[in-house]
């Protein structure tokens, strides 16, 4: 798998790391390689172990087994205050008794850098996050978004080998969060530091990170680019967790030439899909993204997969509309239609019959 950044040996290597709390494995034998300059996201629901993994990188937790190597150096015996790693905390953890400038300069003062160097670097990094004007304020006098920028500046100023971000946008409101995502990517491109971000928000991970690791109960279930994990989810969990999806459980009835026919409960005709050769009788799930389903009032010609259903609900979401369609088996299917298409074509209204069709490449065949 290509590593982002400049390639070569992995910059951060996590080898078989396990962490148990009271017998329960919060992180279970996790291995991961991350390249220099990557923007990497650890994505998963709460309690999946992503924050524990991040805290082990920072040195706040010790792994029960396994090794963490940063730039080839084993971190096992290195305390947090000697690691070439800085963290941006979810709560920001700004020192309330210090001004913005002295918060940001704190790390440099610990390294006993000369005074004028500290001053230059602090003002440079504050300019980078657009907080130069507020250098003399106390954290209590700042808004949530401003505090977040200060926290980022404080973690950046030491130019660490790894910058760890623990749910960096969780405390911001929606609009600010969207702006901040782009800002974060811009800053990461500017400074070139390797970012590792923990988040439970798949949209946040998808829009910022160059690669994503999806975690589930202490394990990494898939690593890949946002496109890969979205288009080719490895498991039902990944398909369901990332984005909206329609999942059909069924059995393979026929497989040939990289294509399978899957008979799905409640549907008369098998669904045609592309996928790895699987023996007939294998239990599989089909994952179909709502935007890959074509919704028409009239029966379309020559569609590979075609089912009919009744529109039960239409949710208008501005740029697109989400339809809930009940199949004859009562299974609900979601389909999204860009509103620009919806308004152009013949309208399908609630209560009406509609045809759902999708190409053979739309479903992803999942065996686990």
């Amino acid at each position: 798998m290509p590593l982002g950044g400049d390639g070569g040996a992995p910059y951060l290597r996590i080898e078989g790391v396990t962490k148990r709390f009271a017998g329960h494995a919060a992180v279970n034998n996790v291995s991961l390689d991350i390249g220099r300059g990557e923007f990497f996201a650890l994505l998963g629901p709460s309690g999946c172990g992503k924050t524990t993994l991040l805290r082990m990188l920072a040195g706040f937790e010790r792994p029960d087994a396994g090794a963490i190597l940063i730039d080839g150096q084993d971190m096992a015996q290195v305390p947090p205050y000697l690691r070439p790693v800085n963290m941006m905390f979810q709560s920001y953890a700004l020192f309330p008794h210090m001004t913005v400038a002295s918060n940001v300069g704190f790390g440099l003062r610990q390294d006993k850098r000369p005074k004028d160097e500290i001053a230059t670097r602090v003002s440079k990094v504050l300019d980078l996050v657009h907080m130069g004007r507020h250098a003399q304020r106390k954290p209590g006098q700042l808004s949530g978004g401003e505090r977040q920028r200060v926290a980022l500046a404080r973690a950046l100023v030491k130019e660490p080998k790894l910058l760890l971000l623990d749910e960096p946008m969780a405390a911001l409101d929606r609009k600010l969060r969207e702006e901040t995502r782009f800002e974060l990517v811009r800053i990461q491109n500017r400074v070139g530091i390797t970012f590792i971000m923990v988040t439970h928000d798949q949209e946040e991970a998808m829009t910022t990170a160059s690669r994503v690791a999806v975690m589930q109960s202490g394990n990494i279930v898939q690593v890949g680019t946002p496109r890969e994990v979205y288009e080719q989810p490895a498991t039902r969990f990944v398909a369901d967790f990332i984005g909206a999806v329609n999942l059909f459980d069924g059995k393979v009835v026929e497989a040939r030439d990289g294509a399978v026919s899957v008979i799905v409960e409640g549907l008369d005709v098998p669904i045609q899909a592309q996928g790895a050769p699987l023996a007939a009788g294998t239990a599989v799930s089909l994952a179909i993204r709502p935007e890959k389903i074509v919704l028409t009032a009239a029966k379309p010609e020559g569609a590979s997969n075609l089912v009919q259903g009744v529109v039960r609900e239409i949710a208008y979401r501005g740029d697109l509309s989400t339809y809930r369609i009940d199949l004859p088996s009562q299974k609900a299917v979601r389909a999204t239609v860009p509103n620009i298409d919806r308004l152009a074509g013949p309208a399908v209204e609630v209560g009406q019959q509609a045809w759902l069709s999708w190409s053979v490449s739309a479903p992803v065949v999942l065996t686990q």
Partner: protein
Amino acid sequence: MREGRAGRRAVIAIPYLWLLLFFMVPFAIVLKISFAETALGIPPFTPLIGPDDDGKTSLLASLANYRLIGDDFLYLRAYLNSLKFAAGATVCCLLIGYPLAYGIARAPRAWRGLLLMLVILPFWTSYLIRVYAWIGLLKGNGIINNLLIWAGLIGDPLPLLNNAFAVYLGLTYSYLPYMILPLYAQLEKLDPTLLEAAADLGCPPSRAFWNVTLPLSLPGIAAGCLLVFIPMVGEFVIPDLLGGPDTLMIGKVLWDEFFTNRDWPVASALAVSMLVLVVIPMALLRKHLGGGEAR
């Protein structure tokens, strides 16, 4: 709406009424007595308004008592001595109380209640009895001296009682919980993530204490120090029981003026001066600290 406001006023009025009745009114009486002169009789002082030498009714306030306090070096010495004892014992309380409070605040949550209970436990016994108990411990043939002699560490009993040492010990012992509780309250509030942030930025734990924990616990330190320092200045029981006859503290002098000399006006003037001398610096300090802590 209107009723709600009236109700709120009534609730606020109760403590103020209490303070007015049982603090401000008695204080006004003490202030009044401090301007009077001693007299034989009941009460043992002259009225503030009465016939003067010419027989006319007029205000008979006199500053003679304050002048006496200013002129007689004894009072100033007693006052300075009190400040010295109180300051020394406050420092002792802080040095012992801070690590204790820190330890309790960092203990597992399940333990904290028990540990705090142990701090408060001495209050279940009368303060007077606890101070008396120290006499038994400290006196020439007391428990400590006997133990040391029995262990062969010393030949003759150590002079532990009736000196400044005993006063410092008694003050520190008696007021320690008042130092621990506000410090604990402050330290318990301290967000442990701040210490992680400090470590993350290259600050080892020992230095993080000076850079983060201590500055953030300053309000607790100030509260604890005020809480022990002010009553220590006026302390009477401890110097009387443990300090012996040579220990001079303003509380003791006040007691003597009041009960031994039956000079209520001078005792009142002393009480007023003491209050002013303690309260004004504290108010200034508070204002100063408060200004530094605007959040």
